[in-house]
């Protein structure tokens, strides 16, 4: 039976990585066919670097690119929450990335986002 691996990478681990290390980690995983979920999502600048690095690795044989989606957790705008978040928490932002030939993101609503993962075919 064919399987798919899903990796959830914690905010704590991501905080210890440079942008370059994050992108390498993501692309290595995705090229192996994994779906990667980042607890602390990429910034738009990191996303652009990821797209650039992805394009450099597309090979017309086994790797056609990535499917990526970012989910912003709606913010609580109360002053107490803002103060608390600003001081102690990271903005809620998750990023899901998978191999383009296996993962297709569906339209998301503010509370849910869905993806279809196809098992047949290599990464």
């Amino acid at each position, binding site marked *: 039976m064919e399987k798919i691996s899903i990796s959830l990478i914690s905010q704590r681990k991501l905080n210890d990585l440079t942008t370059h290390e994050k992108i390498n980690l993501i692309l290595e995983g995705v090229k192996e066919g994994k779906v990667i979920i980042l607890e602390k999502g990429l*910034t*738009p*600048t990191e*996303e*652009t670097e990821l*797209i*650039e690095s*992805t*394009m*450099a690795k*597309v090979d*017309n044989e086994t790797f*056609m*690119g*990535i*499917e*990526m*989606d*970012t989910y912003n957790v709606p913010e609580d705008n109360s002053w107490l929450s803002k103060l608390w978040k600003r001081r102690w928490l990271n903005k809620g932002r998750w990023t899901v990335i998978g191999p*383009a*030939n296996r993962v297709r*993101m569906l*339209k998301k609503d503010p509370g849910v986002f869905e993806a279809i993962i196809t098992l047949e075919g290599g990464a």
Partner: protein
Amino acid sequence: MGWLQRLKRGSFGKFLRLVFGRNHARIGIYGPPNSGKTTLANKIVKDWAGDIVGTVSGIPHETRRVKLKRDLTVRGDGGVLDIDIVDTPGIATKIDFRDFVEGYGIDEEDSKKRAKEATEGVIEAIRWLDDMDGVILVVDSTQDPFTQVNITILGNLEARKLPLLIAANKVDLKEAAPSLIRESFPQHKVVPLSALTGYNVESFYDNLIDVFR
């Protein structure tokens, strides 16, 4: 961003523009494949220089190299603006040569070559962002605008503090819904237009001068 660009975009730049008059801006045309970037670039260049920058087709990734047209003078109700226009390849997160074979009947060898060139085009387009003074994001009004590519481009431009104008293109098509683009990106100026027919381009030029001057 280099120190010279920061100076140019900052209050020192505004001071120079006040003293010396007209501004000059290098404006990049960005967006996903097939949103009409080259059609818009051609319209701008034709209107202000009687020329075109590139060929247009219905096949995605027709533009695979950055194309620059220097020294156009755009005139509108709000004044005059000197610009360079940079037409860029469509930004994508995936490029599968089989889409060209199956969708457009291009043979496998040419499709692979096209796909390879398209990946290089995406990289080139992203790298050119460092040289832009502002960006026109071209969005297809017939498609859902809330895509990851649009969000990533917008987020990147916001992080760079680059002036931005969103062209809600293809409003000549029946299924166009430019209001959805306004609702999706309320923090940015959105101008509905048809680069193909020229519908609303006067308003587009007025906004171009207003945003990038």
